[in-house]
């Protein structure tokens, strides 16, 4: 017996209440309002539709995305001590490390849609209890004293020689770095040492969202590119022989 106002609603509700139980009311609403009811949505476009094939298309497009393009490769030289008195250290090159320019990442973050959530001016946050007591609250980098202090310092920071009369608003880009090794596989030793950059201008509740772009990969060191011990020793063997 149909309980809903028409056949289409009936079918949607039956679909929602059957199959995998992970379909939330909000997501079903989203499917109907944002997709099915969109004037651009045409049923005939879906003939022969397959999620697997469309996923492949997305993967192929991602390979060409500007995100990966924005990484460049670099070789880093390190000095390896000889361990012998009087013998100067040898230079070892670690090739092919992936990086993004720090200034480019900052520029991208401030001009991205995420920047609409950015705080350019820090502030003090207070909580007033029912008894009338006021208490300072620290919950984010942009309501901390260090941010306020640095914001004040930046107002007095020098302007570049070519733009001594610049009147643009001066703001702080609050950089928070972290780095840790990441296992790439459950088995084997494939590892990365990424350096991540987070912006303290935006709430940690935004950064906590899994799809948030608040965290940027800045640098990737692949363990395969790290010198094996024999190669490092080789730097000096070549030197002495």
């Amino acid at each position, binding site marked *: 017996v149909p309980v809903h106002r028409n056949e289409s609603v009936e079918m949607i509700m039956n679909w929602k209440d059957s199959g995998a139980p992970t379909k939330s009311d909000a997501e079903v609403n989203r499917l109907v309002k944002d997709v099915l009811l969109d004037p651009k949505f045409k049923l005939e476009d879906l003939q022969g539709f397959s999620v697997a094939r469309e996923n492949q298309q997305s993967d192929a497009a991602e390979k060409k995305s500007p995100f990966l393009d924005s990484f460049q490769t670099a070789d880093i030289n390190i000095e390896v001590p000889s361990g012998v008195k009087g013998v100067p250290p040898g230079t070892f090159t670690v090739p092919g490390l992936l990086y993004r320019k720090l200034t480019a990442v*900052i520029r991208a973050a401030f001009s991205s849609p995420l920047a609409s959530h950015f705080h350019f001016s820090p502030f003090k946050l207070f909580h007033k209890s029912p008894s009338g007591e006021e208490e300072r609250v620290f919950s984010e980098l942009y309501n901390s004293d260090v941010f306020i202090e640095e914001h004040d310092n930046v107002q007095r920071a020098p302007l570049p020689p070519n733009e001594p009369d610049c009147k643009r608003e001066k703001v702080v880009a609050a950089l928070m770095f972290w780095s840790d090794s990441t296992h790439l596989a459950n088995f084997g030793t494939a590892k990365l040492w990424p*350096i991540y950059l987070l912006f303290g201008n935006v709430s940690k509740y935004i950064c906590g969202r899994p799809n948030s772009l608040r965290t940027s990969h800045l640098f990737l060191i692949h363990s395969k590119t790290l010198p094996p011990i024999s190669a490092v020793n080789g730097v000096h063997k070549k030197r002495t022989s």
Partner: protein
Amino acid sequence: MTHCRRELMHGVWKFLLDEDFIHAYKYGMVVKCVDGIERRVYPRFFTYSADYPEK
């Protein structure tokens, strides 16, 4: 080996803090923000937490 990895990390940072960054640190960098307004942005370090690749 630990020495090499530490050296590499320092090498990486030396590389990342390039001329453009130092200039931006000193004089700020003009960025057109998403609201269409240009601001002079001064990058500042607030935190750095790292587990160095030692082992």
